[in-house]
Protein backbone atom coordinates (compact mmCIF):
# COMPACT_ATOMS: atom_id res chain seq x y z
CA UNK A 1 0.00 0.00 0.00
CA UNK A 2 1.20 3.53 -0.56
CA UNK A 3 2.54 5.48 2.36
CA UNK A 4 -0.34 7.12 4.14
CA UNK A 5 2.16 9.30 5.91
CA UNK A 6 -0.04 12.21 6.83
CA UNK A 7 -2.70 10.06 8.42
CA UNK A 8 -0.24 8.81 11.05
CA UNK A 9 0.27 12.29 12.39
CA UNK A 10 -2.48 13.42 14.72
CA UNK A 11 -3.89 16.92 14.80
CA UNK A 12 -2.91 17.38 18.47
CA UNK A 13 0.68 16.48 17.64
CA UNK A 14 0.70 18.96 14.78
CA UNK A 15 -0.60 21.70 17.09
CA UNK A 16 2.07 20.96 19.69
CA UNK A 17 4.84 20.97 17.14
CA UNK A 18 3.46 24.21 15.73
CA UNK A 19 3.66 25.82 19.16
CA UNK A 20 7.12 24.51 19.90
CA UNK A 21 8.80 25.16 16.56
CA UNK A 22 6.78 27.83 14.78
CA UNK A 23 6.33 25.83 11.57
CA UNK A 24 2.98 26.15 9.83
CA UNK A 25 0.49 23.29 9.48
CA UNK A 26 1.32 22.62 5.84
CA UNK A 27 5.06 22.74 6.51
CA UNK A 28 4.70 20.19 9.29
CA UNK A 29 2.73 17.72 7.16
CA UNK A 30 5.15 18.17 4.29
CA UNK A 31 8.12 17.58 6.57
CA UNK A 32 6.38 14.56 8.02
CA UNK A 33 6.17 13.11 4.51
CA UNK A 34 9.89 13.67 4.16
CA UNK A 35 10.58 12.11 7.57
CA UNK A 36 8.50 9.11 6.59
CA UNK A 37 10.27 8.67 3.26
CA UNK A 38 13.67 8.72 4.98
CA UNK A 39 12.51 6.17 7.54
CA UNK A 40 13.28 3.02 5.59
CA UNK A 41 12.73 0.77 8.58
CA UNK A 42 9.23 2.22 9.01
CA UNK A 43 9.51 2.26 12.79
CA UNK A 44 8.64 5.92 13.31
CA UNK A 45 12.21 6.99 14.03
CA UNK A 46 15.31 7.71 12.02
CA UNK A 47 18.63 6.00 12.60
CA UNK A 48 22.04 7.33 11.60
CA UNK A 49 22.03 5.02 8.56
CA UNK A 50 18.79 6.60 7.35
CA UNK A 51 20.56 9.97 7.25
CA UNK A 52 23.69 8.60 5.64
CA UNK A 53 21.62 7.25 2.79
CA UNK A 54 21.24 10.80 1.49
CA UNK A 55 24.13 11.16 -0.98
CA UNK A 56 24.38 14.96 -0.71
CA UNK A 57 24.73 14.64 3.05
CA UNK A 58 27.18 11.76 2.83
CA UNK A 59 29.59 13.86 0.77
CA UNK A 60 29.32 16.85 3.11
CA UNK A 61 32.61 17.03 5.07
CA UNK A 62 30.68 17.80 8.26
CA UNK A 63 27.94 15.29 7.44
CA UNK A 64 28.51 13.13 10.49
CA UNK A 65 28.50 16.11 12.86
CA UNK A 66 25.25 17.39 11.39
CA UNK A 67 23.66 13.95 11.68
CA UNK A 68 24.78 13.84 15.28
CA UNK A 69 22.91 17.06 16.02
CA UNK A 70 19.64 15.26 15.41
CA UNK A 71 20.26 12.65 18.07
CA UNK A 72 19.90 13.55 21.74
CA UNK A 73 22.71 12.60 24.11
CA UNK A 74 23.34 8.85 24.01
CA UNK A 75 20.38 7.96 21.79
CA UNK A 76 20.36 6.17 18.48
CA UNK A 77 16.91 7.03 17.22
CA UNK A 78 15.49 10.38 16.23
CA UNK A 79 11.72 10.67 16.44
CA UNK A 80 9.65 13.19 14.53
CA UNK A 81 9.42 15.68 17.41
CA UNK A 82 13.18 15.72 17.76
CA UNK A 83 13.58 15.98 13.99
CA UNK A 84 11.32 19.04 13.86
CA UNK A 85 12.94 20.62 16.90
CA UNK A 86 16.35 20.42 15.23
CA UNK A 87 15.05 21.69 11.90
CA UNK A 88 13.35 24.57 13.67
CA UNK A 89 16.76 26.09 14.33
CA UNK A 90 16.94 26.86 10.62
CA UNK A 91 13.70 28.72 10.27
CA UNK A 92 14.26 32.29 9.12
CA UNK A 93 14.00 34.79 11.95
CA UNK A 94 11.53 37.06 10.09
CA UNK A 95 8.97 34.25 10.18
CA UNK A 96 8.55 34.81 13.89
CA UNK A 97 6.68 37.99 13.10
CA UNK A 98 3.89 35.98 11.52
CA UNK A 99 3.52 33.39 14.20
CA UNK A 100 3.42 34.82 17.68
CA UNK A 101 1.92 31.69 19.11
CA UNK A 102 5.15 30.33 20.60
CA UNK A 103 5.98 28.96 23.99
CA UNK A 104 7.58 31.32 26.46
CA UNK A 105 11.28 31.73 26.25
CA UNK A 106 13.41 32.12 23.19
CA UNK A 107 12.20 30.63 19.93
CA UNK A 108 14.34 27.82 18.59
CA UNK A 109 15.43 29.88 15.62
CA UNK A 110 16.72 32.89 17.54
CA UNK A 111 20.20 34.13 16.77
CA UNK A 112 21.51 32.70 20.03
CA UNK A 113 20.03 29.28 19.37
CA UNK A 114 21.42 29.21 15.85
CA UNK A 115 24.83 30.00 17.26
CA UNK A 116 24.36 27.29 19.88
CA UNK A 117 23.65 24.78 17.11
CA UNK A 118 26.90 25.74 15.37
CA UNK A 119 28.79 25.71 18.66
CA UNK A 120 27.64 22.15 19.29
CA UNK A 121 29.02 21.08 15.92
CA UNK A 122 32.46 22.01 17.20
CA UNK A 123 31.97 20.79 20.76
CA UNK A 124 32.50 17.06 20.19
CA UNK A 125 32.27 15.88 23.81
CA UNK A 126 29.39 18.22 24.72
CA UNK A 127 31.22 19.79 27.65
CA UNK A 128 30.26 23.35 26.59
CA UNK A 129 33.83 24.22 25.66
CA UNK A 130 35.68 23.95 22.37
CA UNK A 131 39.16 22.68 23.15
CA UNK A 132 42.13 22.88 20.77
CA UNK A 133 41.80 19.18 20.09
CA UNK A 134 38.14 19.45 19.16
CA UNK A 135 38.83 22.39 16.89
CA UNK A 136 41.62 20.44 15.21
CA UNK A 137 39.37 17.43 14.66
CA UNK A 138 36.64 19.51 13.06
CA UNK A 139 39.15 21.35 10.91
CA UNK A 140 40.56 18.02 9.80
CA UNK A 141 37.06 16.92 8.77
CA UNK A 142 36.64 20.03 6.65
CA UNK A 143 39.99 19.97 4.84
CA UNK A 144 40.64 16.23 4.51
CA UNK A 145 44.23 15.42 3.64
CA UNK A 146 44.97 18.64 1.83
CA UNK A 147 46.59 20.63 4.65
CA UNK A 148 49.49 19.54 6.83
CA UNK A 149 49.24 18.93 10.56
CA UNK A 150 51.51 21.86 11.39
CA UNK A 151 49.58 24.32 9.27
CA UNK A 152 46.30 23.11 10.69
CA UNK A 153 47.73 23.32 14.18
CA UNK A 154 48.75 26.94 13.70
CA UNK A 155 45.31 27.76 12.29
CA UNK A 156 43.73 26.26 15.41
CA UNK A 157 46.11 28.09 17.73
CA UNK A 158 45.45 31.42 16.05
CA UNK A 159 41.70 30.93 16.17
CA UNK A 160 41.74 30.10 19.88
CA UNK A 161 44.06 32.98 20.60
CA UNK A 162 41.72 35.44 18.92
CA UNK A 163 38.61 34.11 20.59
CA UNK A 164 39.81 33.16 24.06
CA UNK A 165 39.33 36.01 26.50
CA UNK A 166 39.62 34.26 29.85
CA UNK A 167 42.86 32.43 29.10
CA UNK A 168 41.69 28.85 29.56
CA UNK A 169 42.82 27.89 26.02
CA UNK A 170 39.26 26.85 25.20
CA UNK A 171 36.40 28.65 23.56
CA UNK A 172 33.28 28.91 25.67
CA UNK A 173 29.87 29.69 24.23
CA UNK A 174 29.97 33.35 25.23
CA UNK A 175 33.42 33.76 23.65
CA UNK A 176 32.02 32.06 20.54
CA UNK A 177 29.15 34.54 20.40
CA UNK A 178 31.57 37.45 20.78
CA UNK A 179 33.78 36.30 17.91
CA UNK A 180 30.84 36.00 15.57
CA UNK A 181 29.00 39.15 16.58
CA UNK A 182 29.60 40.79 13.19
CA UNK A 183 28.49 37.80 11.13
CA UNK A 184 24.97 37.72 9.70
CA UNK A 185 24.06 34.51 11.48
CA UNK A 186 20.34 34.92 10.85
CA UNK A 187 20.85 34.72 7.12
CA UNK A 188 23.67 32.16 6.97
CA UNK A 189 21.95 29.68 9.23
CA UNK A 190 18.48 29.90 7.75
CA UNK A 191 16.74 27.80 5.16
CA UNK A 192 13.95 29.25 3.05
CA UNK A 193 11.02 27.07 3.98
CA UNK A 194 8.16 27.60 1.56
CA UNK A 195 4.63 27.92 2.87
Amino acid sequence: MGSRASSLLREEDIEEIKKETGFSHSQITRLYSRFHSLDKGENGALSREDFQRIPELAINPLGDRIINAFFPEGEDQANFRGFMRTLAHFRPVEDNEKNKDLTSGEPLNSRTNKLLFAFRLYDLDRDDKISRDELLQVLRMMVGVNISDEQLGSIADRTIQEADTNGDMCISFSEFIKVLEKVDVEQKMSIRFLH
Partner: protein
Amino acid sequence: MESYLFPFDSLICMLLGISFTVWFTLLLVFIIVPAIFGVSFGIRRLYMKSLIKLFEWATLRMDNGETLKRIIAKEPVSLEQEIQDMRRGGAEPEFDMSDIFYFCRRGVESIVDDEVTKRFTAEELESWNLLTRSNYNFHHISTRLTALWGVGVLIRYGFLLPLRVTLAFTGVGLLVVLTSIVGLFPNGRMKNYLSDKVHLMCYRICVRALTAIITYHDSENKPKNGGICVANHTSPIDVIILASDGCYAMVGQVHGGLMGVIQRAMVKACPHIWFERSEVKDRHLVAKRLSDHVADKSKLPILIFPEGTCINNTSVMMFKKGSFEIGCTVYPVAIKYDPRFGDAFWNSSKFGMVNYLLHMMSSWAIVCSVWYLPPMSRMEGEDAVQFANRVKAAIARKGGLADLLWDGGLKRGKVKEVFKEEQQKLYSKVLVGSSEDGSSS
Protein backbone atom coordinates in the same frame (compact mmCIF):
# COMPACT_ATOMS: atom_id res chain seq x y z
CA MET B 1 -32.14 -34.27 -6.74
CA GLU B 2 -29.87 -35.10 -9.60
CA SER B 3 -32.66 -34.96 -12.16
CA TYR B 4 -33.17 -31.34 -11.18
CA LEU B 5 -29.53 -30.51 -11.62
CA PHE B 6 -29.07 -32.31 -14.91
CA PRO B 7 -30.78 -29.89 -17.28
CA PHE B 8 -29.26 -27.10 -15.23
CA ASP B 9 -25.83 -28.61 -15.65
CA SER B 10 -26.04 -28.85 -19.43
CA LEU B 11 -27.46 -25.33 -19.59
CA ILE B 12 -24.53 -23.99 -17.63
CA CYS B 13 -22.09 -25.90 -19.77
CA MET B 14 -23.69 -24.53 -22.89
CA LEU B 15 -23.60 -20.97 -21.58
CA LEU B 16 -19.99 -21.30 -20.53
CA GLY B 17 -19.10 -22.77 -23.89
CA ILE B 18 -20.81 -19.97 -25.78
CA SER B 19 -19.32 -17.20 -23.67
CA PHE B 20 -15.83 -18.67 -24.02
CA THR B 21 -16.19 -18.86 -27.78
CA VAL B 22 -17.53 -15.34 -28.04
CA TRP B 23 -14.83 -13.99 -25.76
CA PHE B 24 -12.09 -15.77 -27.62
CA THR B 25 -13.35 -14.62 -31.00
CA LEU B 26 -13.49 -11.04 -29.80
CA LEU B 27 -10.01 -11.41 -28.44
CA LEU B 28 -8.77 -12.78 -31.71
CA VAL B 29 -10.44 -10.22 -33.92
CA PHE B 30 -9.84 -7.12 -31.90
CA ILE B 31 -6.48 -7.81 -30.38
CA ILE B 32 -4.43 -10.62 -31.82
CA VAL B 33 -5.10 -10.13 -35.52
CA PRO B 34 -4.29 -6.41 -35.44
CA ALA B 35 -1.15 -7.25 -33.49
CA ILE B 36 -0.04 -9.61 -36.19
CA PHE B 37 -0.45 -7.02 -38.88
CA GLY B 38 0.60 -4.03 -36.84
CA VAL B 39 -2.64 -2.11 -37.25
CA SER B 40 -4.86 -0.67 -34.58
CA PHE B 41 -8.60 -0.16 -34.20
CA GLY B 42 -8.02 2.78 -31.90
CA ILE B 43 -9.87 1.16 -29.00
CA ARG B 44 -7.06 1.87 -26.59
CA ARG B 45 -6.89 5.54 -27.48
CA LEU B 46 -10.61 5.89 -26.97
CA TYR B 47 -10.23 4.24 -23.60
CA MET B 48 -7.43 6.63 -22.71
CA LYS B 49 -9.48 9.69 -23.63
CA SER B 50 -12.39 8.56 -21.48
CA LEU B 51 -10.05 7.93 -18.57
CA ILE B 52 -8.64 11.43 -18.86
CA LYS B 53 -12.13 12.90 -18.68
CA LEU B 54 -12.81 10.74 -15.65
CA PHE B 55 -9.68 11.90 -13.83
CA GLU B 56 -10.45 15.52 -14.54
CA TRP B 57 -13.90 15.08 -13.07
CA ALA B 58 -12.42 13.32 -10.04
CA THR B 59 -9.88 16.09 -9.47
CA LEU B 60 -12.60 18.70 -9.24
CA ARG B 61 -14.27 16.76 -6.49
CA MET B 62 -11.27 16.34 -4.31
CA ASP B 63 -9.36 18.37 -1.84
CA ASN B 64 -5.73 17.90 -2.66
CA GLY B 65 -4.58 19.66 0.42
CA GLU B 66 -0.93 20.20 0.96
CA THR B 67 0.80 17.93 -1.44
CA LEU B 68 3.16 18.69 -4.20
CA LYS B 69 4.81 21.99 -3.44
CA ARG B 70 8.52 22.07 -2.76
CA ILE B 71 9.44 22.31 0.90
CA ILE B 72 12.37 24.67 0.60
CA ALA B 73 13.90 27.03 -1.91
CA LYS B 74 17.57 26.30 -2.31
CA GLU B 75 20.02 28.95 -3.28
CA PRO B 76 22.73 27.58 -5.52
CA VAL B 77 25.61 29.47 -3.93
CA SER B 78 29.01 27.94 -4.30
CA LEU B 79 31.39 27.27 -1.45
CA GLU B 80 33.94 29.84 -2.56
CA GLN B 81 31.38 32.57 -3.03
CA GLU B 82 29.87 32.03 0.37
CA ILE B 83 33.18 32.04 2.19
CA GLN B 84 34.30 35.21 0.39
CA ASP B 85 31.03 36.86 1.38
CA MET B 86 31.61 36.09 5.00
CA ARG B 87 35.17 37.37 4.95
CA ARG B 88 34.33 40.76 3.59
CA GLY B 89 34.27 42.45 6.96
CA GLY B 90 37.52 43.64 8.50
CA ALA B 91 40.82 41.82 8.46
CA GLU B 92 41.04 38.51 6.65
CA PRO B 93 41.73 35.64 9.03
CA GLU B 94 42.85 32.41 7.50
CA PHE B 95 40.04 30.48 9.01
CA ASP B 96 36.87 31.75 10.57
CA MET B 97 34.63 29.86 12.92
CA SER B 98 31.69 30.91 10.81
CA ASP B 99 32.98 28.82 7.91
CA ILE B 100 30.99 25.86 9.12
CA PHE B 101 27.74 27.73 8.54
CA TYR B 102 27.93 26.91 4.85
CA PHE B 103 28.39 23.18 5.35
CA CYS B 104 25.82 23.19 8.11
CA ARG B 105 23.13 24.83 6.06
CA ARG B 106 23.81 22.70 2.97
CA GLY B 107 23.73 19.59 5.08
CA VAL B 108 20.38 20.40 6.66
CA GLU B 109 18.98 21.49 3.28
CA SER B 110 19.84 18.09 1.87
CA ILE B 111 18.16 16.39 4.84
CA VAL B 112 14.96 18.30 4.10
CA ASP B 113 15.06 17.88 0.32
CA ASP B 114 17.70 16.18 -1.79
CA GLU B 115 17.93 15.45 -5.49
CA VAL B 116 18.67 11.76 -5.36
CA THR B 117 16.63 9.73 -2.89
CA LYS B 118 13.34 10.82 -4.40
CA ARG B 119 14.29 9.33 -7.78
CA PHE B 120 14.04 5.81 -6.43
CA THR B 121 10.41 5.87 -5.36
CA ALA B 122 7.31 6.29 -7.46
CA GLU B 123 6.58 9.80 -8.67
CA GLU B 124 3.90 11.59 -6.66
CA LEU B 125 0.78 12.58 -8.58
CA GLU B 126 -0.94 15.92 -8.47
CA SER B 127 -4.37 14.41 -8.51
CA TRP B 128 -5.65 11.02 -7.61
CA ASN B 129 -6.09 8.50 -10.38
CA LEU B 130 -8.43 6.18 -8.48
CA LEU B 131 -5.76 3.62 -7.68
CA THR B 132 -5.24 2.77 -4.03
CA ARG B 133 -1.52 2.54 -4.51
CA SER B 134 -1.19 6.19 -5.47
CA ASN B 135 -3.32 7.50 -2.65
CA TYR B 136 -1.07 9.08 -0.07
CA ASN B 137 -1.84 12.62 0.83
CA PHE B 138 -5.37 12.79 -0.44
CA HIS B 139 -8.03 13.20 2.21
CA HIS B 140 -11.76 13.84 2.03
CA ILE B 141 -12.74 11.31 -0.59
CA SER B 142 -16.46 11.62 -1.15
CA THR B 143 -18.77 8.61 -1.32
CA ARG B 144 -19.31 9.17 -5.01
CA LEU B 145 -15.60 8.96 -5.61
CA THR B 146 -15.30 5.88 -3.42
CA ALA B 147 -18.07 4.23 -5.44
CA LEU B 148 -16.22 5.10 -8.61
CA TRP B 149 -13.08 3.63 -7.13
CA GLY B 150 -15.00 0.46 -6.31
CA VAL B 151 -16.27 0.19 -9.87
CA GLY B 152 -12.71 0.77 -11.03
CA VAL B 153 -11.46 -2.11 -8.90
CA LEU B 154 -14.10 -4.42 -10.37
CA ILE B 155 -13.26 -3.45 -13.91
CA ARG B 156 -9.54 -3.62 -13.42
CA TYR B 157 -9.32 -6.86 -11.49
CA GLY B 158 -12.37 -8.60 -12.85
CA PHE B 159 -12.13 -7.83 -16.52
CA LEU B 160 -8.87 -6.19 -17.50
CA LEU B 161 -6.53 -8.32 -15.46
CA PRO B 162 -7.68 -11.76 -16.75
CA LEU B 163 -7.74 -10.37 -20.27
CA ARG B 164 -4.23 -9.06 -19.96
CA VAL B 165 -2.85 -12.18 -18.35
CA THR B 166 -4.30 -14.28 -21.18
CA LEU B 167 -2.72 -12.01 -23.74
CA ALA B 168 0.60 -12.06 -21.92
CA PHE B 169 0.70 -15.83 -21.89
CA THR B 170 -0.30 -15.90 -25.56
CA GLY B 171 2.36 -13.40 -26.50
CA VAL B 172 5.17 -15.09 -24.61
CA GLY B 173 4.08 -18.53 -25.69
CA LEU B 174 3.97 -17.54 -29.33
CA LEU B 175 7.37 -15.89 -28.99
CA VAL B 176 8.99 -19.05 -27.71
CA VAL B 177 7.29 -21.36 -30.19
CA LEU B 178 7.64 -19.25 -33.30
CA THR B 179 11.26 -18.21 -32.72
CA SER B 180 12.17 -21.86 -32.23
CA ILE B 181 10.48 -22.66 -35.54
CA VAL B 182 12.25 -19.82 -37.32
CA GLY B 183 15.48 -21.09 -35.83
CA LEU B 184 15.13 -24.22 -37.94
CA PHE B 185 15.52 -22.20 -41.15
CA PRO B 186 18.96 -21.86 -42.69
CA ASN B 187 20.68 -18.53 -42.11
CA GLY B 188 19.85 -15.98 -44.73
CA ARG B 189 17.52 -13.22 -45.73
CA MET B 190 14.40 -15.34 -45.35
CA LYS B 191 15.30 -16.21 -41.80
CA ASN B 192 16.00 -12.60 -40.87
CA TYR B 193 12.75 -11.47 -42.43
CA LEU B 194 10.75 -14.11 -40.58
CA SER B 195 12.58 -13.45 -37.34
CA ASP B 196 11.76 -9.73 -37.54
CA LYS B 197 8.13 -10.41 -38.22
CA VAL B 198 7.80 -12.94 -35.44
CA HIS B 199 9.51 -10.71 -32.86
CA LEU B 200 7.41 -7.69 -33.79
CA MET B 201 4.18 -9.64 -33.68
CA CYS B 202 4.81 -11.12 -30.27
CA TYR B 203 5.93 -7.84 -28.78
CA ARG B 204 2.82 -6.18 -30.13
CA ILE B 205 0.68 -8.77 -28.40
CA CYS B 206 2.59 -8.05 -25.20
CA VAL B 207 1.99 -4.33 -25.68
CA ARG B 208 -1.72 -5.04 -25.82
CA ALA B 209 -1.35 -7.27 -22.79
CA LEU B 210 -0.36 -4.18 -20.85
CA THR B 211 -2.84 -1.90 -22.58
CA ALA B 212 0.10 0.27 -23.48
CA ILE B 213 -0.72 3.33 -25.53
CA ILE B 214 2.52 4.46 -27.09
CA THR B 215 3.17 7.50 -29.23
CA TYR B 216 6.32 7.31 -31.32
CA HIS B 217 7.90 10.58 -32.41
CA ASP B 218 10.51 11.21 -35.08
CA SER B 219 10.52 7.69 -36.43
CA GLU B 220 12.89 8.77 -39.18
CA ASN B 221 15.66 8.54 -36.59
CA LYS B 222 15.02 4.90 -35.78
CA PRO B 223 18.18 2.95 -34.99
CA LYS B 224 19.89 1.17 -37.88
CA ASN B 225 22.09 -1.90 -38.07
CA GLY B 226 25.58 -1.50 -36.73
CA GLY B 227 24.61 1.01 -34.08
CA ILE B 228 23.73 1.04 -30.42
CA CYS B 229 20.40 2.29 -29.16
CA VAL B 230 20.51 3.87 -25.69
CA ALA B 231 17.48 4.86 -23.68
CA ASN B 232 16.58 5.95 -20.16
CA HIS B 233 15.45 3.08 -17.96
CA THR B 234 12.31 3.04 -15.91
CA SER B 235 11.13 -0.55 -15.99
CA PRO B 236 11.62 -3.87 -17.78
CA ILE B 237 8.65 -2.86 -19.93
CA ASP B 238 10.90 -0.37 -21.75
CA VAL B 239 12.17 -3.32 -23.78
CA ILE B 240 8.70 -4.31 -24.91
CA ILE B 241 7.85 -0.72 -25.79
CA LEU B 242 10.88 -0.23 -27.98
CA ALA B 243 10.94 -3.69 -29.48
CA SER B 244 7.35 -3.50 -30.69
CA ASP B 245 8.32 -0.71 -33.05
CA GLY B 246 11.67 -1.93 -34.30
CA CYS B 247 13.95 -4.92 -34.15
CA TYR B 248 16.82 -4.91 -31.72
CA ALA B 249 19.46 -7.26 -30.44
CA MET B 250 19.00 -7.54 -26.71
CA VAL B 251 21.79 -7.56 -24.20
CA GLY B 252 21.50 -9.18 -20.83
CA GLN B 253 22.51 -11.78 -18.31
CA VAL B 254 21.56 -15.39 -18.81
CA HIS B 255 18.71 -16.29 -16.46
CA GLY B 256 17.30 -19.58 -15.41
CA GLY B 257 13.63 -20.56 -15.40
CA LEU B 258 11.08 -19.04 -17.71
CA MET B 259 13.33 -16.11 -18.66
CA GLY B 260 16.02 -18.58 -19.65
CA VAL B 261 13.61 -20.47 -21.88
CA ILE B 262 12.57 -17.25 -23.60
CA GLN B 263 16.19 -16.18 -24.02
CA ARG B 264 17.28 -19.46 -25.55
CA ALA B 265 14.36 -19.45 -27.96
CA MET B 266 14.94 -15.84 -29.04
CA VAL B 267 18.59 -16.37 -29.79
CA LYS B 268 17.72 -19.19 -32.19
CA ALA B 269 15.96 -16.78 -34.52
CA CYS B 270 18.44 -13.90 -34.46
CA PRO B 271 21.66 -13.12 -32.60
CA HIS B 272 21.03 -11.56 -29.18
CA ILE B 273 23.85 -11.07 -26.71
CA TRP B 274 23.40 -13.02 -23.52
CA PHE B 275 26.20 -13.02 -20.95
CA GLU B 276 26.94 -15.61 -18.32
CA ARG B 277 27.04 -14.18 -14.82
CA SER B 278 30.82 -14.62 -14.64
CA GLU B 279 31.38 -12.88 -17.97
CA VAL B 280 29.54 -9.74 -16.85
CA LYS B 281 32.39 -8.76 -14.52
CA ASP B 282 34.94 -8.90 -17.32
CA ARG B 283 34.60 -5.49 -18.94
CA HIS B 284 36.95 -6.27 -21.82
CA LEU B 285 35.00 -9.36 -22.75
CA VAL B 286 31.76 -7.43 -22.69
CA ALA B 287 33.22 -4.64 -24.81
CA LYS B 288 34.64 -7.12 -27.29
CA ARG B 289 31.38 -8.96 -27.80
CA LEU B 290 29.51 -5.69 -28.26
CA SER B 291 32.06 -4.34 -30.75
CA ASP B 292 32.03 -7.58 -32.72
CA HIS B 293 28.28 -7.37 -32.94
CA VAL B 294 28.12 -3.79 -34.19
CA ALA B 295 30.91 -4.46 -36.68
CA ASP B 296 28.68 -6.96 -38.44
CA LYS B 297 26.26 -4.79 -40.41
CA SER B 298 23.84 -7.61 -40.96
CA LYS B 299 23.11 -7.79 -37.26
CA LEU B 300 20.44 -5.71 -35.57
CA PRO B 301 21.20 -2.60 -33.48
CA ILE B 302 21.94 -3.34 -29.83
CA LEU B 303 19.56 -2.05 -27.18
CA ILE B 304 21.27 -0.88 -23.98
CA PHE B 305 20.13 1.00 -20.89
CA PRO B 306 23.28 2.78 -19.66
CA GLU B 307 21.84 3.85 -16.30
CA GLY B 308 22.13 0.26 -15.22
CA THR B 309 19.07 0.35 -13.00
CA CYS B 310 15.46 1.51 -12.99
CA ILE B 311 14.89 5.19 -12.17
CA ASN B 312 11.48 6.67 -11.54
CA ASN B 313 11.15 8.59 -14.84
CA THR B 314 11.52 12.07 -13.36
CA SER B 315 15.21 12.25 -14.13
CA VAL B 316 18.06 10.67 -16.05
CA MET B 317 20.99 9.55 -13.92
CA MET B 318 24.62 8.85 -14.74
CA PHE B 319 25.23 6.85 -17.90
CA LYS B 320 27.85 4.12 -17.53
CA LYS B 321 30.56 4.77 -20.07
CA GLY B 322 30.95 1.18 -21.33
CA SER B 323 28.57 1.45 -24.27
CA PHE B 324 30.06 4.78 -25.28
CA GLU B 325 33.60 3.45 -25.60
CA ILE B 326 32.76 1.14 -28.49
CA GLY B 327 33.03 3.82 -31.11
CA CYS B 328 29.96 3.30 -33.23
CA THR B 329 26.93 5.47 -33.88
CA VAL B 330 24.70 5.93 -30.88
CA TYR B 331 20.96 6.31 -31.37
CA PRO B 332 19.49 7.96 -28.26
CA VAL B 333 15.86 7.33 -27.37
CA ALA B 334 13.86 9.14 -24.70
CA ILE B 335 10.95 7.37 -23.03
CA LYS B 336 8.51 9.31 -20.87
CA TYR B 337 5.59 7.65 -19.13
CA ASP B 338 2.42 9.45 -18.22
CA PRO B 339 2.00 8.60 -14.53
CA ARG B 340 -1.72 9.30 -14.43
CA PHE B 341 -2.70 5.98 -15.91
CA GLY B 342 -0.34 3.68 -14.11
CA ASP B 343 3.09 3.95 -12.64
CA ALA B 344 5.59 2.02 -14.72
CA PHE B 345 8.55 2.43 -12.37
CA TRP B 346 9.86 -0.82 -10.90
CA ASN B 347 10.99 -0.25 -7.35
CA SER B 348 13.00 -3.46 -7.16
CA SER B 349 13.84 -3.01 -3.49
CA LYS B 350 10.14 -2.95 -2.63
CA PHE B 351 8.47 -5.26 -5.13
CA GLY B 352 9.54 -8.46 -6.83
CA MET B 353 9.00 -9.06 -10.53
CA VAL B 354 5.71 -10.94 -10.17
CA ASN B 355 4.24 -8.32 -7.85
CA TYR B 356 5.39 -5.64 -10.25
CA LEU B 357 3.77 -7.31 -13.27
CA LEU B 358 0.57 -7.69 -11.28
CA HIS B 359 0.61 -3.96 -10.54
CA MET B 360 1.21 -3.22 -14.20
CA MET B 361 -1.60 -5.40 -15.38
CA SER B 362 -4.08 -4.02 -12.90
CA SER B 363 -3.42 -0.35 -13.62
CA TRP B 364 -5.62 1.56 -15.97
CA ALA B 365 -3.11 1.61 -18.79
CA ILE B 366 0.49 2.38 -19.58
CA VAL B 367 0.71 5.56 -21.57
CA CYS B 368 4.04 6.74 -22.82
CA SER B 369 5.82 8.76 -25.45
CA VAL B 370 8.93 7.63 -27.25
CA TRP B 371 11.20 10.11 -28.99
CA TYR B 372 13.82 8.87 -31.42
CA LEU B 373 16.66 11.39 -31.31
CA PRO B 374 19.07 11.99 -34.20
CA PRO B 375 22.13 9.72 -34.10
CA MET B 376 25.24 10.91 -32.28
CA SER B 377 28.88 9.95 -32.55
CA ARG B 378 31.88 10.65 -30.39
CA MET B 379 33.51 13.91 -31.42
CA GLU B 380 37.24 14.61 -31.70
CA GLY B 381 38.84 15.15 -28.35
CA GLU B 382 35.82 13.94 -26.44
CA ASP B 383 36.28 11.03 -24.09
CA ALA B 384 33.68 8.36 -23.37
CA VAL B 385 32.42 10.05 -20.20
CA GLN B 386 31.88 13.41 -21.92
CA PHE B 387 30.16 11.68 -24.82
CA ALA B 388 27.92 9.79 -22.41
CA ASN B 389 27.00 13.04 -20.65
CA ARG B 390 26.24 14.72 -23.96
CA VAL B 391 23.87 11.93 -24.97
CA LYS B 392 22.30 11.94 -21.51
CA ALA B 393 21.67 15.69 -21.70
CA ALA B 394 19.98 15.29 -25.09
CA ILE B 395 17.71 12.54 -23.80
CA ALA B 396 16.84 14.48 -20.65
CA ARG B 397 16.02 17.59 -22.64
CA LYS B 398 13.75 15.76 -25.07
CA GLY B 399 11.90 13.78 -22.45
CA GLY B 400 11.50 16.71 -20.07
CA LEU B 401 13.48 14.92 -17.36
CA ALA B 402 16.00 16.32 -14.88
CA ASP B 403 19.59 15.70 -15.92
CA LEU B 404 21.53 14.42 -12.90
CA LEU B 405 25.18 13.51 -12.51
CA TRP B 406 24.47 11.12 -9.66
CA ASP B 407 24.93 7.40 -10.19
CA GLY B 408 21.80 5.25 -10.32
CA GLY B 409 23.80 2.75 -8.29
CA LEU B 410 23.12 4.94 -5.26
CA LYS B 411 19.77 3.18 -5.10
CA ARG B 412 21.53 0.38 -3.33
CA GLY B 413 25.11 1.43 -2.72
CA LYS B 414 26.88 4.16 -0.82
CA VAL B 415 28.26 7.23 -2.48
CA LYS B 416 31.97 7.11 -3.24
CA GLU B 417 34.38 8.77 -0.80
CA VAL B 418 35.99 10.65 -3.66
CA PHE B 419 33.08 13.11 -3.82
CA LYS B 420 33.57 14.06 -0.17
CA GLU B 421 37.26 14.44 -0.86
CA GLU B 422 36.45 16.85 -3.68
CA GLN B 423 34.47 19.02 -1.26
CA GLN B 424 37.34 18.96 1.22
CA LYS B 425 39.80 19.92 -1.48
CA LEU B 426 37.63 22.85 -2.54
CA TYR B 427 37.47 24.16 1.00
CA SER B 428 41.20 23.72 1.54
CA LYS B 429 41.85 25.77 -1.56
CA VAL B 430 39.74 28.57 -0.14
CA LEU B 431 41.65 28.45 3.14
CA VAL B 432 45.12 28.22 1.71
CA GLY B 433 44.31 30.58 -1.14
CA SER B 434 43.19 33.35 1.19
CA SER B 435 46.37 33.11 3.24
CA GLU B 436 48.39 33.80 0.10
CA ASP B 437 46.23 36.84 -0.62
CA GLY B 438 46.61 38.00 2.97
CA SER B 439 50.40 37.82 2.93
CA SER B 440 50.68 39.77 -0.28
CA SER B 441 48.34 42.62 0.71
